[in-house]
């Protein structure tokens, strides 16, 4: 079926080449990072996890969000989702691969990556993160491929694929819960030490993932003859609306606990993010942008008229995606380290090579989406869906 991705218009190939070029620049910067060490990034002794890990965290959420189309379709027979489950699963594949790439570029000694397998350590959440992410990648690849093949040959889905699909549903929840556990179990980081972490992660994932999926479906509609269907997108947008509402509610909960209790450890993280701490606050504009975009997105989505209209839906999805990217993919990780364990604010800003590598990985993610979606569209057009 991969041959379907090898036949395309000049625009298709132009897009592929642009993505390869961006990935190439990122790769070149990575070679520079391998040579010099992680000093080429903006990370420091105090802020030892930053853009790479933040992006990993965000994209695990995107990967997990495939469950928002898989669960309703396979467990509750929501027929309209049948047209787009494959796009959700392939988005998950691309997102998980991006996550793994972000881990690799963040490691100090990537050649020793397999030590996690040679010396398995069940008490380490990072070990389980490796297990669940690898498992999820395999699951979605096998499921997506077989579902597409079955569709193409007009066959019933084999029983064993159905079993894997049922497994992938709690597994999707697990990948993001385990990622939340990376943060939520560390005694020294007050901003992260909240039981709400797992819930917040899932809520923002179920807002940002489907938002991206809707936008990708609109692209699919434009570049091909396949129409994902208004009903499917309509239902997805409702999911985003409620996930976003819950997400913002959870942020409010954090604010209450921090500022009503007046415990310094709880207040400092949020204060740093939204107002700055000790005169330093380079994330403040980004956090207020997050607020504006999230609220704007919510207003557009909660109103049925703007939610159903394609133009405003696209704006809302874009706003929600960028808002969550800022909150989770930028604010969350860095703020865990501020203030540092010795109560001092040491700020972080990404460097150019760091951003180039990040954008390079984004390009690889989009490349995978492009190829897999082209394949899926090719099959769907072939069977005249």
């Amino acid at each position, binding site marked *: 079926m991969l041959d379907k991705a090898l036949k395309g218009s000049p625009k298709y190939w132009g897009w592929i080449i642009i993505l390869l070029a961006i990935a190439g620049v990122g790769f070149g910067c990575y070679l520079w990072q391998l040579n010099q060490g992680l000093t080429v990034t903006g990370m420091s002794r105090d802020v030892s996890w930053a853009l790479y890990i933040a992006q990993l965290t965000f994209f695990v959420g995107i990967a997990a969000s495939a469950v928002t189309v898989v669960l309703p379709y396979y467990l509750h027979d929501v027929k309209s989702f049948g047209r787009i489950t494959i796009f959700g699963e392939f988005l998950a594949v691309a997102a998980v691969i991006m996550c793994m790439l972000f881990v690799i570029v963040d490691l100090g000694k990537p050649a020793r990556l397999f030590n996690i397998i040679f010396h398995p350590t069940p008490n380490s959440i990072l070990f389980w993160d490796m297990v669940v992410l690898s498992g999820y990648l395999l699951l979605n690849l096998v499921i997506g491929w077989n579902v597409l093949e079955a569709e193409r040959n007009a066959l019933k889905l084999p029983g064993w694929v159905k079993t894997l699909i049922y497994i992938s549903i709690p597994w999707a929840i697990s990948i993001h819960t385990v990622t939340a556990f990376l943060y939520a179990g560390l005694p*020294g980081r007050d901003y992260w030490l909240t039981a709400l972490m797992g819930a917040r992660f899932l809520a923002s994932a179920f807002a940002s993932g489907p938002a991206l999926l809707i936008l990708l479906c609109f692209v699919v509609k434009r570049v091909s003859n396949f129409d994902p269907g208004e009903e499917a997108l309509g239902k997805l947008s409702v999911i985003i609306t409620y996930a976003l509402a819950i997400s913002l509610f959870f942020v409010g909960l954090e604010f209450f606990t921090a500022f009503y209790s007046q415990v310094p450890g709880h207040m400092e993280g949020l204060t740093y993010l939204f107002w700055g701490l000790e005169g330093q606050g380079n994330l403040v504009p980004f956090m207020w942008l997050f607020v504006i975009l999230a609220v704007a997105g919510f207003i557009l989505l909660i109103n049925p008229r703007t939610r159903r209209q394609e133009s405003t839906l696209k704006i809302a999805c874009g706003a929600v995606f960028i808002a969550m990217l800022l909150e989770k993919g930028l604010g969350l990780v860095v703020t865990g380290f501020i203030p540092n364990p010795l109560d001092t604010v040491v700020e972080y800003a990404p460097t150019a090579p760091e951003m180039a590598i990040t954008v390079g990985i984004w390009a690889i993610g989009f490349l995978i989406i492009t190829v897999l979606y082209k394949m899926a569209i090719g099959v769907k057009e072939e069977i005249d869906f």
Partner: protein
Amino acid sequence: MKINRRNFLIVGGFGALGAGMLSATKSFGRKVQAGQGMPAPKWALAVDLQKCWAGQQAGCHDCLNACNKAHNIPQMNEAKDEIKWIWLAPFEKVLPGQQHDFLPEGIKEKPVVTLCNHCDNPPCVRVCPTKATFKSAEGVVTMDYHRCIGCRYCMAACPYGARSFNFRDPRPFISEREMTYPTREKGVVEKCNFCAERLEEGLRPSCVEACSYGALIFGDLSDPQSEVREILRQRYSLQRKPQLGTDPKVYYLI
């Protein structure tokens, strides 16, 4: 079962999976080796701040210099790359949450010796995905630089900021090489190791040895007659962030 290609692939796949699991199961079965005869010591350090501050008045940094020299600690140009095993930080930063507005004059800014606490319940050991950092039988939280993959999870987990990462090759920044001890390389995390290499020979850590003001008292907590147990009986002591349950083995005598 018919031997066709499909069945062969299925059986082969599971076989390969099983074989791959072997190495994982081996680690589950490994037991901790029991000691021989004598109970293992439990090393701890007491920092007598009054004596240390007296020494600092005279400009003493002997413990820092001894450690930095003995372990080839690089002196980096940029603060973000810095490697610190033992250093000085203000009293109010080292022991936050135990401060108020009416403490004796000037005490908040007084520099306090800060290092890895070699906790009894170390979060860094709990999170390490390869057991590159582990707690030795003698209670020393140790680094295996050969195994470290540089994921820096331990740095996120440490509530005391005791760990440093080699963001770059440290060798150009080592002014004088101590030939009996290795350097580290870019990409691994490092920290104070309680001079485990000296403890094995019955010597005290370099910092303790270097302190001429008697401010660093080192010893075995499991020996009720040890120097450190004696001083902890006599003087009131504080641990850093005790409410986190890490049970540090560095005690500050105020």
